[in-house]
């Protein structure tokens, strides 16, 4: 299939301005800036059914509609803090198809009447930010950004801003705190960013992949986009496939392909042909899904994965085979979440500390059945009590592993009386 987002895989040198222009680049931005009202752009994106690709899946157009028109200026902030273990899609877009992304940034900014956009990249993307800066300068020179975009009165300045190694900054309010020069710790919500965001001003925070969808949606229309994917979740998605598969990588596919197609057709199956054991569909934040036939034939859209007791999130599919011990796995995820807990709320700060303490003991074979019970209890006590979703995330793999794979924790599976 031809790619919509990873178009650089079909067209060489698409990151060069002249090539991108020749391939229809900036046509969508021109159409929007010279011929559409901002509200009409928002309505079109609303009608397309596009939902945020950062993980939460919130309808993009609706988010834009929430922007407070009685408080100015407005900002667009791009979440390019991609840090979820198992997620590496935004990096490929930023490296190889950056102009389509930047065109998307400009379209979003026009739609919400913002004149400044910040691209917040994780610090590790330092070389990517340096390249983006050059492209932003080239786009300004060509009249696509900066003063008088396409000769109109519309002005847009785009800046990059580097984080410095903090997973929590992928949470949008923590990201805004960080951009304001503070420690990246989440804010209490409401108010949500479209009402009070950067510097207390209405702010739209969108993910890189979300924005990269905008130029093709503007060019081809809402109905075209809705014709892709499933009734539950429209459009295409970059699936990040990693773990125990032969061909890990990014696969751009319509929503609705099954786990089986993704893992066995695209990913080439499991390394050494070992049987598959479990799937984490949304990176390290996922609940584990038992990889039986029913799971493998489940279409990948938000609703279907939710019905399996998990979430699709940013579609970072980590594949686990029979060689993977889950007491080892949850110690890995807890190492991550303990390290990345921002320390603001007690359930996450203390909970992740104690969970890591227990997972380490259990992994090393020094845990008792009581330890496993205590671990499960700490995780469940945290659920629903953390300031942001990331505290909640830390409990998902722990609770689901103990529940669905008790054998990995020395517990005999309960046999139901029949």
């Amino acid at each position, binding site marked *: 299939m031809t790619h919509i987002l990873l178009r650089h895989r079909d067209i060489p040198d698409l990151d060069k301005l002249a090539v991108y222009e020749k391939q229809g680049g900036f046509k969508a931005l021109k159409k929007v800036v010279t011929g559409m009202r901002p509200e009409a752009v928002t309505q079109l994106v609303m009608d397309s059914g596009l939902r945020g690709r950062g993980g939460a899946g919130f309808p993009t157009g609706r988010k834009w509609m929430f922007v407070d028109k009685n408080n100015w200026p407005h900002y667009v902030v791009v979440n390019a803090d991609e840090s979820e273990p198992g997620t590496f899609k935004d990096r490929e877009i930023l490296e190889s198809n950056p102009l389509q992304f930047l065109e998307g940034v400009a379209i979003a900014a026009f739609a919400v009447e913002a004149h400044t956009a910040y691209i917040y990249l994780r610090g590790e993307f330092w070389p990517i930010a340096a390249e983006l800066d050059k492209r932003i300068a080239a786009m300004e020179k060509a009249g696509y950004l900066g003063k008088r975009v396409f000769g109109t009165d519309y002005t847009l300045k785009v800046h990059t801003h580097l984080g410095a190694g903090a997973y929590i900054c992928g949470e949008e309010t923590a990201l805004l705190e960080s951009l304001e020069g503070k420690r990246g710790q989440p804010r209490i919500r409401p108010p949500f960013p479209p009402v009070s965001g950067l510097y207390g001003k209405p702010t739209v925070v969108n993910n890189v992949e979300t924005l990269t969808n905008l130029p093709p949606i503007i060019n081809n229309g809402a109905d075209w986009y809705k014709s892709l994917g499933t009734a539950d979740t429209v459009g295409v998605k970059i699936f990040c496939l*990693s773990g125990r598969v032969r061909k890990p990588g990014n696969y751009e596919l319509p929503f609705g392909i099954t786990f089986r197609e993704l893992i066995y057709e695209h990913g080439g199956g499991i390394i050494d042909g070992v049987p598959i054991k479990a799937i984490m569909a949304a990176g390290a934040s996922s609940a584990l899904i038992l990889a039986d036939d029913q799971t493998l034939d489940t279409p990948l859209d938000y609703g279907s994965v939710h019905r399996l007791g998990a979430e699709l999130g940013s579609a*970072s599919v980590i594949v686990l085979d029979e060689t993977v011990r889950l007491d080892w796995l949850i110690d890995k995820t807890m190492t991550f979440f303990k390290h990345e807990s921002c320390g603001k709320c007690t359930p996450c700060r203390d909970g992740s500390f104690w969970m890591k303490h227990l997972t380490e003991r259990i992994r090393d074979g020094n845990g008792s059945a009581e330890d496993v019970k205590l671990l499960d209890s700490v995780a469940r006590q945290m659920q629903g009590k953390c300031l942001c979703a990331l505290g909640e995330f830390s409990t998902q793999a722990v609770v689901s592993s103990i529940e669905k794979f008790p054998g990995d924790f020395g517990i005999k599976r309960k046999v139901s009386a029949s």
Partner: protein
Amino acid sequence: MTLIEKYPQEVKQILARYPQDQKRSAVMPLLYLAQRENGFVHRRDMKDIGAMLDITETDVASLVGFYSLYHDEPAGRLRIQVCTDLSCALRGADDFLAALCESLGVEPGGTTPDGLVTVEPVMCLAACDKAPLFQVQTGAGLEYHERMTIEKTLEWIESRKEAAS
């Protein structure tokens, strides 16, 4: 020498990116600038940045402590950070780190006696399909080395040694 004396152009450019009444936003890029020369942020630079942005030295230090890419003490000139997070670990990253440390004769987090190389594990680097991989933080920036082997890594370290001598 203060930061603004040392890098007048860059400080000016950084400050220009943010609204004039929100200059605190410049603290993170300024910390990267302060870290450029020696790979860590010196106390006097924290004070200097604080004065420039009308925030306290403690505010600045709290950011250095919070974000893992800022350092407040010197390490090897090449800070090799191996991703050992879940997806990479499923493809042998833990073994890679252990073997690399053994080859260099250091513990994870340690620095070689010549002060050239520090090796440490880090959290996910968003390149899960290219394990084993590491990033190298130098004063001038940051680079990725993907799909690595111990041999390739040692060769690369040698080449950097030669370049440095």
